[in-house]
């Protein structure tokens, strides 16, 4: 069963992947360096499908897309947070890392708790309780259905976004 890695408020993209470790475009290398200083045991202990639960303003700071790439490559299935910084949220959706905004779950869980989530519906089951993430915007839904922003634009062009705007 997927387990939770719990983080606090204001987790910056510098914490997710420090500047000294993102001098690469190789996702595997980024995954190995994910949270290398903020939580050094992270990359080695993540099992594929595990979930990050963060506090407020998750992914704040630098626009580096290496951050969601690192989280995804580390094996994390999805990030649930009380709130996300705008650029991180958009980057995660663009590369196919599910992100779910849900305020209520944060105080109901501890690090290491088992969790089940449905990244399509945004429903979260943990400690015998169900939580519902906020509904993403129509563009985010269109990108998620296509897989990535590149997949969406390559197959359907801007019409795919213009028709939901």
């Amino acid at each position, binding site marked *: 069963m997927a387990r939770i890695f719990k983080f606090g408020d204001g987790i910056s993209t510098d*914490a997710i992947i420090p500047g*000294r470790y993102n001098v690469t475009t190789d996702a595997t290398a980024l995954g190995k360096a994910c949270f290398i200083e903020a939580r050094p045991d992270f990359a080695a202990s993540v099992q594929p499908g595990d979930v990050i639960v963060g506090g407020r303003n998750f992914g704040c700071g630098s626009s580096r*897309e290496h951050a969601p790439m690192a989280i995804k490559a580390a094996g994390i299935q999805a990030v649930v947070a009380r709130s996300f910084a705008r*650029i991180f949220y958009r980057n995660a959706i663009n590369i196919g890392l599910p992100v779910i905004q849900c305020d209520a779950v944060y105080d109901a869980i501890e690090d290491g708790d088992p969790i089940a989530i449905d990244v399509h519906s945004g429903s979260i089951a943990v400690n015998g309780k169900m939580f519902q993430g906020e509904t993403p915007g129509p563009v985010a839904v269109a990108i998620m259905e296509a897989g990535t922003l590149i997949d969406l634009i390559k197959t359907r062009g801007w019409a795919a976004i213009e028709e939901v705007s």
Partner: protein
Amino acid sequence: MGTLTEEIFSRRLGRDVHAGEIVVAPVDYAMAHDVTGPLAIEAFRHLEVPLWDPERVILVFDHILPANTVASAGLHKLVRDFATEYGVTHVFQEGICHQLMVEKGFIRPGGIVVGADSHSTTYGALGCFAAGFGSTDIAVTFATGRTWFRVPETIRINLRGALPPGIFPKDLALQVIRRLGAEGANYLAVEWGGEAVEAMSVDERLTLANLTVDFGGKAGLCEPDEQTRIYLGDAEVADLHPVAPEYRSVVEVDAQTLEPQIACPPAIDNVQDLSTVEGTQLDEVFVGSCANGRIEDLAIVAGYFEGRQVHPRTRTIVVPASKQIYMEALARGYIQTFMEAGALVMNAGCGPCLGRQHGVLGPGERALSTSNRNYAGRMGSPQAEIYLANPAVAAVSALAGAITDPRGFN
């Protein structure tokens, strides 16, 4: 009708656009640098289409300049090869991307510009809607000249009164961040106005617009005015004003009662009055960055350094934001003043701000910086501490070897 943001999008799209709408809009320019560029280029290549316009793609080497490892040199080569293959003409290695975007004339009032860097908000100082994006979004703009926006609602921030001695735009921005918190403007645009902004130079407004993203803002705009026209050397700059705007909220800040503001480790919104942390000993002072590396900032520091020595405990690093600023500082004698005072002067670029090249902090070290980020590990060791302040505080703190109030300093 509407906020500056709504006015800009309405004019660009030729119809009334309101906050909350999702639009696909053409942009003037798309910028990427040596860290975000490689991912953007790889994503762009996956699209298998021609480049939208080789004269509207801007590539800047600034975060690691010159390359300091084989890995960074390899990424630089990836960007250079792309520029050659696609005929990209605007390729720069002479300063921080944001400063160059402004200096090179790519930013126009009423424009829309996107950058693969969070501090792309900087260009809003000239009345341009400018926002930061990740590499994949920029790759799609490289291919199409467009991107999608959810047109943001706006927080209006009125900065009242005249700035007293020792108080600078950095203090006003940090005061706003102190009040609104690090995500206070998340998903929102910010309009900077009020008589303090009207009295500011464009250089000073660039600091406000720059720091807008550090409390979450998508864009940070100032109304273009006479200062803007003088700065651009163009009397023909079109009028652009908010017209019967409806703001999400209005924030009033009294500049006259402020004391210097310090963002203390480890978060941008951990802002204190200087007096709270006065006397904190410093191992490093960094003057530079896209927040405060312009000629007016260097002039402030040179004024304090003239005929003095930086404290032997405190290595002091000065990095002009661009070659143009560096050469102006040379002509004015500032560079000589910095060097005679014992400071290290590095080539124009991002410098120590992001801990990837020179000026890296060791475990347990403490720095004061004129930059805009103080996360643990930002400038080196995660056990180091970073304080953010205005250039006058940086200057007198370098001389004293500890956090010092510039007011009354002699």
